[in-house]
């Protein structure tokens, strides 16, 4: 059943992409924009035991990033679960280490995670009155704060197409943890609702 949902989701996304493409003038420059600027792989961070996907640079200064990932949690780690995520973050501060690397110490961001599957997606029609459960079981909205060490690929890995390699740590929490904490601030520390993930981003 879950694989059916993934297939349906994939077909919906393909269809969406097709309409976007056909509604715009599919010139070469636009198609080039669809080519990712990087690849990303992450351990934990609430979007899978491991997740992987593509990354786009945003803005002229390339300080913004938009990642699209698919993650999986195996049964042995508390799954099986599939998680799709779309993540945006911005790197406001850069500390250079000569021309070899840069540290981006505090990068705020936000991401949305989606769990496909019957248990998460569909309520049976008429089973609940409106507002019986107010939250979505499938979709979580997260806020994040990451720090990244970006190594200069041109300097360290010449003769490759790798522009840079970023190693990052990302803290996040989601809206359900946040409401749990907010009503119990006197007995819970904010750190109780902070989760972490570690990842690598390869920039082309």
């Amino acid at each position: 059943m879950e694989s059916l949902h993934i297939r349906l989701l994939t077909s919906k996304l393909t269809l969406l992409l097709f309409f976007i493409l056909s509604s715009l003038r599919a010139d070469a420059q636009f198609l080039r924009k669809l080519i990712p600027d990087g690849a990303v792989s992450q351990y934990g961070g609430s979007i899978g035991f491991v997740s992987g996907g593509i990354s786009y640079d945003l803005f002229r200064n390339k300080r913004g990033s938009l990642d699209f990932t698919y993650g999986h949690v195996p049964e042995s780690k508390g799954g099986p679960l599939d998680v799709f995520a779309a993540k945006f973050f911005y790197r406001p501060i850069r500390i250079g280490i000569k021309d070899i690397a840069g540290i981006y110490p505090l990068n705020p961001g936000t991401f949305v995670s989606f769990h496909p599957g019957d248990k998460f997606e569909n309520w049976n029609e008429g089973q609940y009155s409106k507002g019986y459960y107010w939250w979505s079981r499938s979709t979580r909205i997260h806020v994040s704060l990451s720090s990244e060490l970006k190594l200069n690929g041109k300097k360290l890995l010449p003769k490759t197409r790798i522009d840079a390699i970023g190693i990052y740590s990302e803290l996040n929490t989601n809206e359900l943890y946040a409401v749990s904490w907010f009503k119990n601030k006197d007995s819970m520390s904010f750190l109780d609702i902070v989760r972490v993930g570690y990842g690598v981003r390869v920039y082309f």
Partner: protein
Amino acid sequence: MKTYLYLLALLLWGCGQVEYSPNQKFDSNTPSDLNKKNISKLYSQTNDDTVRFVLTGDTQRAYSACKSMVTKINSIEGVDFVVINGDISDFGLYQEMEWINDIYSDIKVPYIGILGNHDISANGKDIYRRMYGEENFCFVYDSVKFVCYDSNSREYNFDGSIPNINWLSTEMKPQEGVKNYVAISHIPSFINDFDPKLEKPYADLITGNKKVLASMHAHINQSHVYYPYNSTTPFIVANTAAKKEFYLIEIVNGKLTHKVINF
């Protein structure tokens, strides 16, 4: 300034717990089979001729109140065990059940967790089963059989299977060493979240057996004792933890008394 930023960046690498998904069923610290383990602890306690226990309602997302509740429960003498009567969690997340277990583990006596409708949300039922055990279970203490069961009919779209009347009838048959019965579940039979097709069979089972001392519930956010179905059998509903009330129940020689405790 730079040094501080370096330090902050380093901190980000160190804090927080690695999470695979808020919907994961467990992490490396999640306890398992709590009901079975706590019932074993209960059996190892020396008992007298009084069964005294605490019936608490929905604990969902009321962590501060639950901490105060635990302090209050620990101050009462002679309590044998505590029951959380369902909706341990609000969103059916493993993290919520772990938070509640962390708080309830400070109670001096064992506690029993019942499955509530919110605990079934998302992966909740699997999480409950791994952490607490089967949703229909019984234990006998001082000749009283506590029959704990899933009555969250709406979560199963009223398919006629919940509550499991056959299982309940079997468990309430006369049994050696059992003088009385107490039924415990989250949703009371007289509200519309209970399967209407099963209301009468349930009511007959409870009110038709003089050995049943009470049917105990939560879910409707009030402390109240009902006497439905033209019967003298009490249906005791415990308030949510957030409203800072619970029931102290006492059973002596087949007689049940109840008292609302505020904290």
